[in-house]
């Protein structure tokens, strides 16, 4: 079972066992990790599950045009910005370290 380490903006960390098949957003919601709002519930149409992927054991799927559109509007976008609803937990990606932004909007 892959382990995801969430780091809140203030540095608080949460290390959780993630179920394969869930999205990183869903894992955060399941364990009540603060800092992800997920207003649209996982459709890549709100941008409020933005996160920064600091580390992943395997390589991540590419950013599709819809995700790119939403990320493009984030004032705090970085090169490792992702929408966590678009990242499926899998053994091929494996463990991840995910930083959470100062705010979601």
């Amino acid at each position, binding site marked *: 079972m892959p382990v995801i380490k969430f780091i809140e903006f203030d540095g608080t960390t949460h290390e959780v066992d993630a179920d394969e098949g869930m999205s990183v957003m869903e894992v955060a919601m399941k364990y009540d990790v603060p800092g992800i*709002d*997920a*207003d*649209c*519930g996982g*459709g*890549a*149409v*709100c*941008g409020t599950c933005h996160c920064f992927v600091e580390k992943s054991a395997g390589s991540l799927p590419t950013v599709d045009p*819809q995700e790119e*559109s*939403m990320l*493009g*509007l984030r*004032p705090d976008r970085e090169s490792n910005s992702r929408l966590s609803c678009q990242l499926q937990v899998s053994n091929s990606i494996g463990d991840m370290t995910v930083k959470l932004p*100062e*705010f*979601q*909007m």
Partner: protein
Amino acid sequence: MNDKRDHIIPDSLTTPLSDLDVSDPRRFEQDCWQPLFRRLRAESPVHFQASSPAGPFWSITRFDDIVEIEKNTQIFSSEPTIAIVDPPPDRGSLMFIAMDQPEHDIQRRAVQPVVAPKNLREFETLIRQRTGEALDALPIGEVFDWVELVSRNLTTQMLATLFDFPWQLRHKLSEWSDAITSDERMTAGRGLTEDQRLDVIMEILEVFTRLWHERAGDGVESFDLIRLLQRDAHTANLVNDPKNYIGNLILLIVGGNDTTRNSMSGGVLFLNDFPEQFERVKADRSLIPSMVSEIIRFQTPLSHMRRTVTQDTDFKGHRMKAGDKVVLWYCSANRDELVIPNADRFLIDRSGVRNHAAFGFGIHRCMGNRLAEMQLRIVWEEALKRFATIEVVTPPTRLCHNFVRGYSHMPVRVQRH
């Protein structure tokens, strides 16, 4: 169109769908819009209406269909406008809400920081203090208009705070907002003509051009919208592009005014209609943030957004032609039982409470959503500190409008703890 107001609204359930005008604003005024939209969701979720005061248009009424269309910005354009009625042919898009990529993104990115939660924190203390003062000034035990003394008053103050607008002139902001949305073609003939609206737009431009020049280069460390625009490289010379300047201003004035104002009034009504929910939030104020999302869903202060088809396309088995208007009825999506169980019930702690359609989806999703939520949260936190009851004494007067869903009057009586 003017004579429409005198006619009886056709019955939503017995009249053939082809004879019904989905955009008839009187259904919203009389709060009898729900049966028609329930019928459309069941019988004709992608519905073509051959004629209306604004011409033919498609009505999309299911939640998931709206999401799908909003994602497809190539086929479903936001230009030239986002309401059913068309702008004058020579005007073109003024606001980024009515622009497609890439121009939309450039303009939105420039103003978005003003409503980012990080910036909003700078304003929260001031907004809370002003909210408290307005609530403390309310008459106790007497009937007064919540729309006027609370909703309109507070949203105007908050907008003035964000613009750092001259305090004594702040009433102008809500007057302008009302005037701009008061299009005779959306209000069964009761609104302003295009020329009257243009006069208002010119007045806004004049005042804000003056404010821009007064502030340019004054070095004041302020987070107000005008100075933020001046500091951003993309918009530092926006004043020299009056069309875009006024477009952004109108978007923020209207976007930040009617919507929050009407949600502020709607919340009072819903808590009266569902008194057990009122008791729950009084007993547990930690429910306020969740209640705020539910208020926004239940109110859906903008009934729709419109898209325009850019090329012939099939959608759910329907042939749409280039140029067709497609109206996304958010008010209907927010009552869609396929996505929201017990959608006609106001439940302040429903699961997935944030997952509503009132802010829209995709790149045009409401930019000020966190500001709206903050304003409503503060109002309810401060109101519940002070008042044991907020009683709607007679039914509110609703707007006769097919875009802005709201109230012109709501008589209430409050009692202190």
